[in-house]
């Protein structure tokens, strides 16, 4: 039984830092350029070229460290990690082994059941990205594009404290959210700005010792992380159930087949022969720098969730959803200010707004409805100008670019009927036109009348073209139908 095993997961997340130039050279890091047009002599490992460290990459790493409450190394050291691969021009990757820039920290992740869990971060270190191998056929050869070579990466290593795919995805989303809040990465997984290696092993619950782990390389979406963990967990459980033993190896997740498989290229035992990079000196980070970065930090997701809960009385899950992206959280706050009712605003943002955003595949920054306009719309529900239902019609018009809510309400004549005499007339007309149903209604036992009551409400609302105040209609109908 698969459930007899405890899953132990540690994640290594590679985050591309959003610097303009590369970590050790002045070449551009822009995504999507023509092959090798952004690979300078340093990136190509031309003879005699030397690395010079990008200040912004260091600052971004420190920012991340401060944000997760980690120890920042006052002195960190770059090392050479030696291996041959065509996308690695120098034959070594400049990375950090023994003295990473960011030490031990932790993040708190919100789980869908409303609980939360703290997950330790062992370390985060700076390193350079490799280029790309393009496997389209060039007469049986592989093409190498080195534009990406030298792009700064922050490798964030978690403790093996993750116990399920769900926790892994929640952790990744939290990291994603933090790096986006900090503005140190665009976190775009489709473009490879954030990639994940999964270390997974199984053990019997209660065991102290970890089982033999496999590493699944380069998984590049939340969904694939979820599926890769599930399938790998099943694979290992199956081996162990049949008395076998898991072989420690590097595997690749094949999304099409939803399975992991051994990587042939990694079969040769690695011996990376790390040693201190002699072309770079130890990196010093001063107390003043750390303090100035700390002072400049934005409010982070966890703090925002807390504030949304206390300030606006939102539930934990709603607050976490709104705070997941800095842009969405800012949108929500701006709209809530105009609306004067944060809970209603939260509902609108999480349902109506996000549904359309997702439907149209938009970023929140490209949303056609400004936060202030949504706030006004919600305010109009609150002050009784329109009903919640009419508001959806207005919102649709706003989305279509037809203007501000007040203008739309005015031009389309959507203002709620305030004249109670006119509503009374509509109610009386409806009852008169449906005398048979009235009789039937009165013959029905009180506890079974609800559905029929809805029929009369519908008739009146229809006659008012939706502009009657539903509450008023309800009250009048109750009075007329049940009051005698």
């Amino acid at each position, binding site marked *: 039984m698969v459930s007899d095993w405890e899953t132990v997961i540690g994640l290594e997340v590679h985050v591309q830092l959003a610097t303009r130039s590369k970590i050790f050279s002045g070449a551009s890091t822009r995504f999507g350029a023509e092959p090798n047009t952004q690979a300078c*002599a340093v990136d*190509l*490992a*031309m*003879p*005699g*070229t*030397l*690395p*010079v*460290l990008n200040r912004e990459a260091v600052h971004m790493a420190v920012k991340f460290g401060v944000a997760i409450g980690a120890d920042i190394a006052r002195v960190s050291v770059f090392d*050479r990690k*030696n291996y*041959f691969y*065509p996308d690695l*021009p*120098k*034959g*070594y990757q400049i990375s950090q082994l023994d003295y990473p820039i960011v030490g031990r920290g932790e993040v708190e992740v919100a789980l869908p059941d409303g609980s939360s869990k703290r997950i330790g971060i062992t370390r985060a270190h700076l390193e350079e990205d490799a280029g790309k191998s393009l496997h389209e056929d060039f007469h049986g050869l592989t093409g*190498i594009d080195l534009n990406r070579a030298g792009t700064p990466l922050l490798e964030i290593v978690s403790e093996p404290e993750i116990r399920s795919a769900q926790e892994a995805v929640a952790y990744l989303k939290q990291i994603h959210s933090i790096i986006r809040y900090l503005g140190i990465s665009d976190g775009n997984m489709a473009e490879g700005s954030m990639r994940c290696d999964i270390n997974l092993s199984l053990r019997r619950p209660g065991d102290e010792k970890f089982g033999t782990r496999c590493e699944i390389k380069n998984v590049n979406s939340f969904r694939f992380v979820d599926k890769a963990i599930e399938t790998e967990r099943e694979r290992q459980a199956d081996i162990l159930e049949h008395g076998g033993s898991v072989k420690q190896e590097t595997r690749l997740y094949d999304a099409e087949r939803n399975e992991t498989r051994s990587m042939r290229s990694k079969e040769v035992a690695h*011996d990376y*022969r*790390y*040693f201190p990079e*002699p*072309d*770079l*000196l130890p990196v010093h980070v001063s107390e003043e720098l750390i303090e100035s970065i700390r002072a400049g930090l934005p409010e982070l997701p966890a703090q925002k969730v807390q504030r949304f809960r206390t300030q606006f009385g939102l539930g934990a899950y709603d607050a976490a959803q709104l705070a997941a992206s800095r842009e969405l959280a800012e949108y929500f706050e701006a709209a809530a200010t105009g609306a004067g009712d944060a809970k209603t605003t939260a509902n609108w943002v999480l349902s109506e707004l996000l549904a359309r955003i997702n439907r149209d595949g938009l970023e929140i920054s490209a949303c056609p409805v400004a936060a202030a306009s949504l706030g006004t719309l919600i305010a109009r529900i609150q002050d009784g100008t329109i009903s919640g239902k009419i508001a959806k019609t207005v919102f649709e018009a706003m989305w279509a670019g037809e203007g501000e809510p007040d203008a739309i309400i005015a031009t389309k004549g959507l203002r709620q009927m305030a004249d109670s005499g006119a509503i009374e007339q509509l109610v009386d007309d409806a009852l008169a036109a449906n005398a048979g149903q009235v009789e039937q209604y009165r013959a029905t036992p009180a506890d079974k009348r609800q559905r029929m009551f809805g029929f009369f409400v519908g008739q009146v609302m229809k006659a008012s073209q939706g502009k009657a105040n539903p509450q008023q209609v309800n009250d009048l109908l109750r009075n007329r139908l049940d009051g005698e």
Partner: protein
Amino acid sequence: MHDIALEAIGSALERREFSSVEITSHLLDRIERANGTLNAFVSVNREGALRAAAAADAARAKGASGPLLGVPIAHKDLFCTAGLRTTCGSRMLGEFVPPYDATVVERLGAAGCVTLGKTNMDEFAMGSSNETSYFGPVRNPWDTGRVPGGSSGGSAAAVAARLAPGATATDTGGSIRQPASLCGLTGLKATYGRISRHGMIAFASSLDQAGPMARSAADCALMLQVMAGFDTRDSTSLEAPVPDYLSLLDRPLAGLRVGVPREYFDPGLHPGTEQAVRAGLAELEAQGARLVDISLPHSPLSVPAYYVIAPAECSANLSRYDGVRYGYRCQDPVDLRDLYERSRSEGFGEEVKRRIIVGTYALSAGYYDAYYRKAQQIRRLIAEDFREAFTQVDVIAGPAAPATAFRFGEKSADPITMYLEDIYTIAANLAGLPAMSMPGGLVEGLPVGIQLIGNHLQEGLLLNVAHRFQQATDWHRHAPAFTA
């Protein structure tokens, strides 16, 4: 005309005694006649040199001036020269034409120097006899049956044979000082970080340092003045200001404390060489310097420590030569492994491969601590020895090489015998100190070098001592009988 030294050429050009084109073409013709015998040049830059000379003459006609404007020199073939083949003495780079200049080349070019050509060298600067060059050995103009020393043997032979008044060179374990000693020249290795390594093809990054080779200390001072200085493209480049070396040359030596390390007068030192070196020390004493007996107790360990550190660094530095982006690529590789192994095995010579293997071994799992870490600890002990010594003395003096130039094949059969050629020079590289060799006598018609080692950034003092010595002696004026 060719017997005029570097400084004098500059003055003669200034006085319009001859033009840059005249001296340049004279030397080019001389190179053409001599190179068949000496093999000092891998590439002769006839067209480029004459063009640069004409430009220098034109600039001078328009009022420009400068001590190096229009002065022809040679570059060791590991300084990248844009558009001019740079081989590093290797088949691997046999056809390599860099699209950029080394900083040293750029700076000397900007000062008006004319590049006559690229000088032969031990492959990737690994050797002490110039016998490991893919382009064949260089012959010593003092005795063409003997080696010029190495690895800057081509630069040494070219200057000694009056094919160039000065040349650039590099020194990782003695590659400027030992050939300067064997060819009767003045050569200086600067403080680590004093001269930019950008564009200088790396052998061992934490040891490599450039310097000038010429006939006198004054000529070296002229070249160093231009070569030294901060460069943003080299992280290990020092930001310290460059003193006016020429103005420091004439200071009297009275009261100067000259340390004479006991360990440098070991049984491995040839008696004739010792006699010459002692006579040179007596001359310094005669000028008022005080000789102080000192000990550098760990210096006997410099050779073993060096032969771990240098190969370890080179094993990584030379991984970039993989037949993919530039350089030698084997014919019809069957797969990626074949491409790597055959390109590297066919592209590199025996000594280079031997050092790559030793270095890879020293860094490999299980051996790192016993070899690499141990060597870096010994390195500190050696540096501490010097630090201690420089609390008692201003400069250290001793032999540059154990003996005069040896015959071809005499030491190439046994790598360890060859490695001991650098026994007195390696320590300065491990400690990053400036050091030079100046002619101090002749033994059986062959030159002997006296080595001077200074504290960090004391190039000015070293040149001062050498210059005063050269004011009182004429060893540096002796020329080989070689006729071009």
